[in-house]
């Protein structure tokens, strides 16, 4: 029993903090017309891979570090704090899909290249107007010798345009089940186009498949989606909690210094109490994230509940905090040249990716009742 971070975890987090503080600058995004490419999206990835984070969760036998969700969260928190544009999230989710759903041959062929930072990935799940959880009715896979041909459209694909390989869910004619495929991004019939995504710290695109050749993720069963979803929720929640804390710190700092009517605005209860509430929610979000990380790391049965709680809570809280921070900064916080809007947009984007808070709350009840039974 020990609910605090270990020294190892703290060290990992500190090193991530130092690295990202040196590497990430959001300044290039604070000029009109900037896109994610301007913030070192590609270059940041080179540095990240050099830190070994591309292979963080990959077992050592495949050239990775074999670490768990807890260590992952230490790093993701720092990325969430700095908004660190890079194809980390897409590659991580693709890597996890291969790790859990690939055949031994597929794992052996692909994971070392991912760990090297040489192969980037993206996971294409949602269809236009839909959500990541399916039902994939617009994407079909038909057998073509020992390979498959895929046709359909996917959207909200994080890091799609940077990915060397796509992990795609589709329906196979003879079955109702979700199946998983790998498709090289340079295969004929694959079109990837970026979306004009409001969160310009993230690259998000859509993918069109017109008979594109793919291979089946051999060992991916029905358990892959919930397993992958829970880890996606954890990552987004960890970003949320850390981003929340960052906007809080920025707003508190401003409130200590900005004078209005002869006093720092942080002396006024309206501001002070708002900041106190933001702190309460930030600490709460982080507690939920650490618990979910621990439960998922040990494959505890409480993991799915913990992940759903962390995502639902942290999303609502982060959006509210980012909005409140803009209000505390006042009109200046509303301008493009301040970083506030980048955090607001990340918060809203994270709130929508992989299911919104209301959807996860509906699941929380079922999971909680199952837990109580």
């Amino acid at each position, binding site marked *: 029993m020990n609910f605090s971070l270990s020294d190892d975890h703290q060290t990992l987090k500190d090193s991530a903090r130092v690295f990202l503080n040196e590497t990430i600058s959001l300044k290039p995004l604070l000029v*009109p*017309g900037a896109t994610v490419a301007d913030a070192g999206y590609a270059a940041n990835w080179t540095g990240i891979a050099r830190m070994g984070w591309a292979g963080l969760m990959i077992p050592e036998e495949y050239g990775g570090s074999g670490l768990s969700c807890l260590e992952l969260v230490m790093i993701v928190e720092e990325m969430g704090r700095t908004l660190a544009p890079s194809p980390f999230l897409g590659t991580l989710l693709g890597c996890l899909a291969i790790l859990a759903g690939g055949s031994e041959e597929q794992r052996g062929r692909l994971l070392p290249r991912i760990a090297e930072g040489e192969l980037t990935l993206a996971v294409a799940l*949602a269809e*236009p*107007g839909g*959500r990541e959880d399916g039902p994939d009715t617009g994407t079909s896979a038909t057998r073509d010798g020992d390979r498959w041909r895929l046709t359909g459209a996917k*959207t*909200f694909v994080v890091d799609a345009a940077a990915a060397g390989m796509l992990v795609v869910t589709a329906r196979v004619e003879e079955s109702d089940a979700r199946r998983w495929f790998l498709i090289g991004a340079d295969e004929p019939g694959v079109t990837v186009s970026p*979306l*004009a*995504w*409001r*969160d310009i710290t993230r690259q*998000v695109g859509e993918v069109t498949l017109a008979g594109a050749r793919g291979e089946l993720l051999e060992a991916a069963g029905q358990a892959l989606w919930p397993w992958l979803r829970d880890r996606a929720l954890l990552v987004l929640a960890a970003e949320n909690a850390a981003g929340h804390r960052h906007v809080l710190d920025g707003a508190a700092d401003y409130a200590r*210094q*900005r*004078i*209005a*009517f*002869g*006093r*720092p*605005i942080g*002396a*006024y209860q*309206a*501001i002070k109490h708002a900041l106190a509430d933001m702190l309460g929610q930030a600490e709460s979000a982080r507690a939920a994230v650490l618990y979910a990380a621990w439960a998922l790391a040990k494959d505890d049965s409480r993991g799915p509940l913990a992940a759903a709680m962390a995502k639902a809570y942290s999303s609502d809280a982060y959006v509210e905090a980012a*909005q409140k921070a*803009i*209000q505390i900064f*006042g*009109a*200046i*916080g*509303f*301008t*493009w*040249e301040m970083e*506030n*809007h980048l955090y*607001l*947009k990340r918060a*809203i*984007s994270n709130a*929508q*990716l992989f299911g*919104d808070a*209301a959807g996860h709350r509906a699941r929380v009840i079922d999971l909680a009742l199952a837990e109580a039974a």
Partner: protein
Amino acid sequence: MDFELPGEDDPRRQKVRAWFAARPRPTGRELAEAGYATPHWPKPWGLAAGPELQLIIDEEMKRAGVTAPSLVNPVAVNNCAQSLLTQGTPAQRERFLMPAIAAEEIWCMLFSEPSGGSDLGSLRTQARREGDHYVVNGQKIWTSLAHKSKIGVLVARTDPAAPKHAGLSQFLIDMDSPGVTVRPIIDLSGHENEYNEVFLEDVVVPADRLLGQEGEGWAISMRQLQTERVALSKPGAIWGAGPSARELVTGLAKIGALDDPLVRDEAASLYIEGEILRLLAYRSLSDRMNARTPGPEGAIRKMMAAPHGQKIVELAKRVQGPTGLIEGRQPFPAGPGRKALFDDWDYAFWFSPAVTLGVGTQEILKNVVGERMLGLPREHDPSARSPWNSPAAPAKRAEVAA
């Protein structure tokens, strides 16, 4: 008590309608000369109209598809130009009023400053008297329409030794004077030119551009900011210029989103709030019609309207799911004939944080309601009484309680 608005057969309405029928595309000057730009003003600029006639003119102008001067030149028509009726010299009225209400010369308000925020009284821009003119130096921010304006309504400090509110004066400056530089501010939605920064460097302003007396700047400015047009503007997002709760409910119904009981419940709350804001607007109007002292509805309405509008666009955006993150995607199929900037739900959403950031932030508005309507003790401003330029003036440093 009667909630019916003036009917179709009201003779006043028929007269106005006939005028617009005869002039399908009136110029601003024609509108102004007919008294339709500022109907509540005295002649020759207005018609000394009561609230009902104002309402009729408002509605008929919309019906005729004519853009009101109050929308083209809001600073002049809604807020500032009226000060010339009371404070202006005859020469000033002659020179400025007709071009202003005809929307031939656009006006902007040079009030807010980077260091001041909602504490407008602490502003730093100075106007130094030199013979027959003033020399102005300083910086303004959050100036709507500055890039289109001919006239700037400037509040500047003429007496730095007076307490902060007492040393201010107001001027009507030419925006094309040498030394005036306008720089657009890009807001978080990526739009520019909604707001501007204005830099004032050794700007020469003739002494006859002073409005009222030196030292009256604070009082004149406050009256201008508190002026409210009589209008039954729909209670919606973006100070009423954006989507309303009625439109939200209709839109949600169109896409089937009201089948979700959570969305339905939120939408119903917003619908009710919207209808109530409309009723509160009616009441302000009635109080004016009955020549009663306006009740607290005005200040209260402002306090409630801004968050109301934010919630409207927030729900619409949330219901859109991840698609709402794609720039320009609308949550609902567009209705017919809606084209104004704030009729764009996507833009209205991203713009909406601004509506609680205006000159009266939400916190200040609540102070006003609590203090003026409920008689609660006023917030203490330690910087209010000492000379503005005294080195010990707390306006310049933090007063932190021990």
